[in-house]
């Protein structure tokens, strides 16, 4: 239990540091910054208390907002992600999710990919809707969501596979 907590804290600090100092400054093609920090919320223990999880998601988002001066857009996007995660789990893993305690490192590549993609796209859509904050630029928003999502999903999958390999 204690070990898990330490692992969580290390993961949080590690991903946030990477996000703030590396991924926030990538600016691929001038405007694409991936947000792989969402991986922290995605792999957060599935069986944890849901209220605690929502609070942690809010805290994660507001930390990034503080560093990026972006108001509350990351906090809002993370909250949606946290609130909708059980539904996405059910969607990606079927009923098996409800009966046994599954771990993301134990499921197949395809299911993992579906789960991460659904969550990342929801997160990015809300993030960029709030960032642009202008419904007339909806095409620009969707375009940015799509391109950034692809980038984030690839990064999340790579980080996830690298980290789960080590444990085996």
């Amino acid at each position, binding site marked *: 239990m204690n070990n898990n907590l330490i692992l969580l804290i290390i993961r949080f600090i590690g991903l946030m540091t990477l996000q703030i*100092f590396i991924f926030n400054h990538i*600016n691929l093609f001038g405007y694409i910054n991936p947000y792989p920090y969402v991986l922290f919320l995605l792999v957060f223990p599935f069986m944890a208390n849901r209220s605690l999880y929502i609070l942690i998601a809010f805290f994660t988002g507001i930390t990034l907002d503080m560093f990026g001066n972006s108001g509350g857009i990351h906090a809002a996007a993370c909250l949606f992600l946290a609130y909708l995660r059980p539904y996405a789990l059910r969607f990606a893993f079927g009923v098996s999710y409800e009966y046994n305690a599954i771990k993301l490192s134990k499921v197949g590549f395809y299911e993992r990919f579906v789960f991460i993609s659904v969550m990342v796209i929801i997160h990015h859509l809300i993030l960029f809707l709030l960032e642009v904050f202008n419904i007339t630029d909806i095409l620009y928003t969707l375009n940015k969501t799509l391109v950034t999502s692809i980038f984030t999903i690839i990064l999340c999958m790579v980080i996830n596979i690298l980290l789960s390999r080590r444990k085996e």
Partner: protein
Amino acid sequence: MQQIINFLIRNKHFFLFAFLLALSLAFTIQSHSYHRSRFVNSANFFSGGVYTSVSNLQNYFKLTEYNEQLLQENASLRERLQDYDESKTTLGNIDNIKNAIEIDSANQYQFIPAQVINNSYSKADNFITIRGGKNDSIQRDLGVITSKGIVGITDKSSSDFCTVLSMLNSNFTTNAKLKSSEHFGTVQWDGKDPNRIQIIDMQQQAPVKIGDTIETSGKSAIFPKGIPIGTIESFDLDQSKNFYILSVKLLNDMTSLGHVYVIKNKFKDEIKALENRDNE
């Protein structure tokens, strides 16, 4: 009553979610309106300190670039100093006297050096964090420039750090004029290209030419007159067919900022007070 409590307990996750969501949406909406106090910003002890330590490290890799910028600035300042000396010794004709007066009136502005510790340019609303705050007498609503052109306006300041509303922010506006004439317009950013900004409401009579320089008009009491912004790249009439919209290529590279100057106008409070009295 029992049922209400039961209902609340059963849906506690949802209520927690809704409450926090409302909070974050409030922060978001606040951040989209100019000049409201922002609760969450990077001008605080924690994020400012973290940014400073990392930027100290990064600065070593950019020393050559900064040195070059400083050399260029020194060179241009030396040129101006020469002009100044010449105009002082030959106060013969009217133009020289005018020049000398203009230079003297520049004392109205105080320049405070500061260091950029965080910069963003790929979002719709970009902010810069600089090292330098209330202890260096940097407050809100001061202009920020580099040797090449304007950068933004200071927003929130703590004792040691300050956030700057970048030129690349949808809330940023200032007045700009053509270098060749006194026609002016309003600077805005459309949120797309970090190298280009737009100038709207430029009079149709203005002699606009591609390649002309755009500079600050000095009307806003934030920036002094004559600080370069960029060069005109293209222009077009707007929907009303009465005003030009100009697309301006920035002289400043907003994607690579190192050292900046914060401009303090000694008469700003006086000007503001006067303007407020007029409005009443």
